[in-house]
């Protein structure tokens, strides 16, 4: 046994003890303290261990937890896979996942700002890039610098899988040695209107994007045509386990990321069977006659997508906050149209509920009294189906107040 491995094992023993204490005494996840200890005492050992695994990292503004779960489900058709299903997607959580992984295959959800660090530390075999849209504007006010950082980092990655409609992620993906693309089938609707390569205005914006400098929307091996997923020309049918077109896109990207390893028909079946909710998202919970479904939305693109998933006839509970990872800036509410909620019973709660109530008021939606408690807001709605949409910090409050594990 080498000196490095002794140090690594000692660090792991200490980290496990602290993680156990964190879980049992402080009722926390334990992975953050575990990962912090490992990086502090055995960072080199983590990097060396990572290179004995095959790692896929998954990043993007929206959909990374769900797509990580889908890729994991697909790869489990072949064998064991470890993943950070708890959503700890920055350095400590990622390090802990790798340090404790037993399976050869690891799928890591990575916060978009941490992609360069994750590539440098773990040397992944593949990187999956979903999208880049505005999120947490106080921390990441611009998209272009993030795309540039991704592109530079990906030069060390053998394969990048990306969504073809998003020019920023396509350009970043070309940093990798090999690329694979999935198409959403709904044209170019991303935030990006400037060419990430030369800075000029892209043209043909609604269908296929292109720039005079030569950068153009690539052909995809996995496509969505009329809501059906098509892989290499083969129609695999409709995916409808999780609601909304965004989840069909997530499934298509998961198939593009795994098609070299798992036969796509089997992969899609595994995704549909195993990925029913993701850390509480899409979970159904009945509370005093209200059949709630929990939905998470963190930014303009996420809210717009989730508002399109609402069940017909369901009442709506919106829970809004601007704390921690939500970011401090609430102004992006005005980049979301709430007009589709007119006429529906709607209640608002959350630490920044007044911001949201004003936004709805300007779209002609009156929510009545504002609620500090999620439960009281829920009880203000009629019995029956209630779709609950919450920002990240609020989502944890919803889970706590409605006793959702």
């Amino acid at each position: 046994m080498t000196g490095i491995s002794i140090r690594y094992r000692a660090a792991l023993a200490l980290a496990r003890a602290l993680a156990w204490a964190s879980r049992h005494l402080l009722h926390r996840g334990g992975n953050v303290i575990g990962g912090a200890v490992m990086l502090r005492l055995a960072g080199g050992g983590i990097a060396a261990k990572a290179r004995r695994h095959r790692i896929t990292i998954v990043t993007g503004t929206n959909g990374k937890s769900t797509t990580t779960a889908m890729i994991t489900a697909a790869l489990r058709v072949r064998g064991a896979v470890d993943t950070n299903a708890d959503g700890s997607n920055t350095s400590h959580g990622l390090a802990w996942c790798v340090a404790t992984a037993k399976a050869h295959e690891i799928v890591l959800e990575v916060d978009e700002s941490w992609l360069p660090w994750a590539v440098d530390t773990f040397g992944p075999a593949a990187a999956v890039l979903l999208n880049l849209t505005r999120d947490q504007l106080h921390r990441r006010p611009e998209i272009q610098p993030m795309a540039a950082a991704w592109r530079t980092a990906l030069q060390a990655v053998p394969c990048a899988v990306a969504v073809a409609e998003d020019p920023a992620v396509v350009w970043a993906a070309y940093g990798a040695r090999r690329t694979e693309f999935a198409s959403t089938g709904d044209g170019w609707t991303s935030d990006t209107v400037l060419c990430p390569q030369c800075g000029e205005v892209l043209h043909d914006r609604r269908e296929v994007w292109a720039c005079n400098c030569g950068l153009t929307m690539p052909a995809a091996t996995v496509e969505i045509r009329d809501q059906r997923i098509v892989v290499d020309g083969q129609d695999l049918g409709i995916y409808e386990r999780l609601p909304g077109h965004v989840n069909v896109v997530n499934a298509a990207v998961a198939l593009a990321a795994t098609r070299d390893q798992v036969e796509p028909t089997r992969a899609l079946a595994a995704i549909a069977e195993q990925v029913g909710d993701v850390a509480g998202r899409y979970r159904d919970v009945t509370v005093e006659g209200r059949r709630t479904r929990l939905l998470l939305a963190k930014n303009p693109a996420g809210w717009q997508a989730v508002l399109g998933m609402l069940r017909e006839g369901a009442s709506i509970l919106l829970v809004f906050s601007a704390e921690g990872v939500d970011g401090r800036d609430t102004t992006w509410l005005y980049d979301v149209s709430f007009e589709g909620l007119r006429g529906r019973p709607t209640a608002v709660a959350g630490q920044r509920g007044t911001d949201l109530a004003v936004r709805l008021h300007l779209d002609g939606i009156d929510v009545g009294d504002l609620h500090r408690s999620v439960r009281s807001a829920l009880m203000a709605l009629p019995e029956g189906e209630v779709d609950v949409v919450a920002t990240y910090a609020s989502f944890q409050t919803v889970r706590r107040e409605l006793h959702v594990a």
Partner: protein
Amino acid sequence: MPDLTVAIVYPELLGLYADRGNAIALRHRAELRGLSCEVRDIHLGEALPEAVDVYIIGGGEDAALGPAIRELRSQRALVGAPDRGAVVLGVCAGFQLLGRRLEAPDGSSVEGLGMLDIESRPLPDRRAVGEIAVQSPLLGELQGFENHRGDALLGEGVTPIGTVEHGVGNGHGNQEGAIDGNVVGTYLHGPALVRNPVFADYVLAGATGAELEPVEDELVERLRAERRAALVHERRGRRRRRW
């Protein structure tokens, strides 16, 4: 034909930071007074129409400044707007583009539209991000959120909107924004007119040429009171941490 037309100029390039909120606020305040209001998006490649009462030029990424100024220079409707009695509201990048000259973070310099007597350059230290409170002799207490890295140097041809009480604003001299008749620039980004109905009414009055009756909006006042209280709480916290 609507009583009022508000144009969001190049929303895909200069409307990335909730700038639609300002148009929504203007429509709301107009409708409270029984005035009909149409909000129009003017996309890249379209000619800017002259039959517009308020032009909103909003925030964009640093990389957008070059393409944006080239497009805007080719549009006569904007430069002639104040003479037609229309209001031009520039926010963040839009504020800078209305100026005489702007310096980009990479050190390059570009000539602006020259509609406001200002020059802008990058803030020397870091990006200004957070709640901002301003006392304005014209508009009273203004509040909002800023997220920019611009420092606006005001010439003699403009007056600042007000004095910064919390936040950064123009970046020096405790000033925020600039006004020259019907041309207004501010760093209060996105829906500044939602949180500041007096500011919205100032723009409406400029565009309609009418004296507007005051209209209370209880929910907006509640939001203003909440954010004012949060700012006081934040300041107290900072003072305690200093001790």
